[in-house]
């Protein structure tokens, strides 16, 4: 008897959860394939950001090196370095 009640209760609970989920609106693509692509894109995005940060740090070092050499203050009539 106890078992039957337990099963019934758990069934009811499951049904309740299912019903509750039905009213929810998908705010995120549900298909696993889409999800995979999204997470992959997110990872690539972070790689892009980290790459940019590394390059900016390299540039900053370069700028600071030039500044410490004191050659960033160019004269007006120096030819353009391109």
């Amino acid at each position, binding site marked *: 008897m106890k078992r039957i009640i337990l099963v019934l209760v758990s069934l009811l609970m499951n049904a309740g959860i299912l019903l509750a989920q039905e009213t929810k609106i998908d*705010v995120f693509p549900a298909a696993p394939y889409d999800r995979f692509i999204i997470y992959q894109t997110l990872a690539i995005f972070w790689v892009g950001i980290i790459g940019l940060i590394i390059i900016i740090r390299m540039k900053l070092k370069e700028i600071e090196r030039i500044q410490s050499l004191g050659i960033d203050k160019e004269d007006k009539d120096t030819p353009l370095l391109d």
Partner: protein
Amino acid sequence: MSYQRLKDWFEERYDIEPLRVFAKHKLVPRHKYEILYYTGGIAMFLFIIQFITGIVLAFYYVPHHEFAYKSIIEIVTKLNMGWFFRSLHHWGAQLAILALFIHAFSTLLLKSYRKPRELLWLTGIVLLGISIFFGLSGYLMLWDERAFAAVRVATGGAGNLPLIGNFIKSFLRGGIDVTGETLIRFYAFHVSLLPLVTMILIGFHVFLVQYHGMSIPLSQEKKVHGYTPFFPNLLYKDLIIWLIVLGIMVTFATLLPPEIGKKADPLAPAPENIKPEWYFLFLFQTLKFFPGEIMGLNGETIAIILISCGIFFFFLIPFFDRKSSRGEKSVLFTWIGVLYTLYFIIMTIIGFLS
């Protein structure tokens, strides 16, 4: 090189030498708290992101009480990347307000509002208020149960102000109650009035920062290690921080897209356990502490008056803090600043937990 020719063309017509001189001489002091200089830049970056995502969302959103909810569901479920841009706009708003609060409280605690920067403080606090209103009006756009109840509470709270309360309430609501009229009104605020005022104020605020230069905290005035040129060193550092913020925002937007509740129904009972957005929690929690009636007066009115006084004092703090303006240490106002900060943080936490 055509770039050179373009430059020459421009410079023949416009004298940008003063700008160049200015850029070369814009220096930022180095000291213990220099990291707080970045908070303003973060807030501005987030505002730009909000403008961009907001514009594209406005392409699809329908500001009508019957279609608003459906149009957002359509954005989220049918359009390419729609769920992402809505989520990004949501998280951008959260982070922007967080950045603004950090920016404001660090200004308060380091007393950067002192003479001659009073106007910077005033414009900044107005911008903070506008951002909160941005948040509230943007939240109503969703037109779900929670948004509906939140706006009803917030506008009703404003209605408790003596004398002008009712006028403000009916102006905000566009009627005596929150209806479809309110939605259109808030939409107009959200997409035209507030962005316009924000742009003007940010322009003025940033101009004033350039005019005064960076403020150095009183305690650090003698401990400045030196100065870093803004162009290009700090610009690159800003860029690094912006990229990190962008990454965090995109990650949040992807992993935690905001839920959509049930469509608002003016006749339905308010949903249970309703909580406002986190930046309203300290107000919400304060209101809870007041009983319904204090000595025959409406408790809520008293609470609203007290809160208004607190905000008003906060707003005018540079004019009360005479000592800092003279360049002396002002212990009293340090404590007041700490009190405000702690009050905000503790009340927000209590609001979260309760």
